[in-house]
């Protein structure tokens, strides 16, 4: 796993070479085919996934309507982190959209990275915080849009 592959992801953009080397040794990779299930809503979340290539469809079950896509993630984005942070089940089902190459960290590796080196941990935590801020803004804008549509 090269440093540049990791640096392409928004979580590690600000990491130095030395810091990336700490991450490289605990990251693994996998390839998924179009439509293949990656994580399922309700399952215990054990991995943080980084999208290196391809897109991932985040879906949820809507009562009486079946499965709906709520978000489409692109290379450089990540998912699965909420379960690692809260130690809670996975909140959405994610499928590969097209052929995907994902990098991933196991829960233990993520926890160790957060516990071992505080400056590195803070950099990683801040990157997740900023991504969460963006998601909160996006989700709020979507709620507003859906609300308007529901009033038609």
């Amino acid at each position: 796993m090269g440093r540049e592959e990791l640096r392409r992801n928004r979580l590690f953009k600000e990491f130095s070479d030395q810091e990336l080397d700490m991450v490289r040794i605990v990251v693994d990779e996998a390839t998924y085919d179009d439509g293949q299930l990656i994580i399922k809503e309700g399952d215990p979340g054990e991995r943080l996934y980084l999208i290196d290539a391809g897109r991932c469809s985040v879906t949820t079950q809507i009562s009486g309507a079946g499965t709906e896509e709520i978000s489409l993630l692109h290379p450089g984005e990540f998912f699965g982190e909420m379960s690692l942070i809260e130690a809670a089940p996975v909140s959405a089902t994610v499928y590969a959209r097209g052929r995907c190459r994902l990098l991933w960290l196991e829960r233990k590796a993520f926890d160790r990275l957060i516990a071992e080196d505080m400056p590195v941990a803070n950099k990683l935590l801040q990157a997740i915080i900023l991504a969460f801020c963006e998601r909160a803004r996006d989700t709020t804008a979507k709620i507003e849009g859906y609300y308007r549509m529901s009033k038609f």
Partner: protein
Amino acid sequence: MEERVKILAACELFKTLPPEALEMLASRSEAAAAKEGEVIVAEGKAADNLYVVAEGQVDYIKRVDEKRGLVLFRWQRGDVLALNPVMDGKEYYVSAIATAPVKFLRISAKDFWAVVAADPLYEHRVFRQTLLIQSAGLRQTTLRLREFLAKIIK
């Protein structure tokens, strides 16, 4: 001062900070109050302050048209208002309106960051708590999203 430290120590965001950090924050905070119906945070304005609710109730409202707003969250004692905008430095994206008389502590974004940056440990603890708060918030907003999506589909 002692009362402000107590309020901060009971707050989800700051509860894991050591006493000296709480005192630093308390000394830079300002006690304030809002009447029922008063706007504490206005959507679209620059995120210059963080608010810790000490008493009362506050609704997060997203404006949907000229007259109406959608209640997204209800905050109470120990909750923090405007965390995301202070974290990303962008404008407030919802309004916070008192739905009962509210007492709160106001901390400027500048003072908040000064205390957080004073020690990597403070930063670490505040960041970890921030993620827990954000994660819970995202789960809630996703549930609201599902509700509206279900309404549209039906």
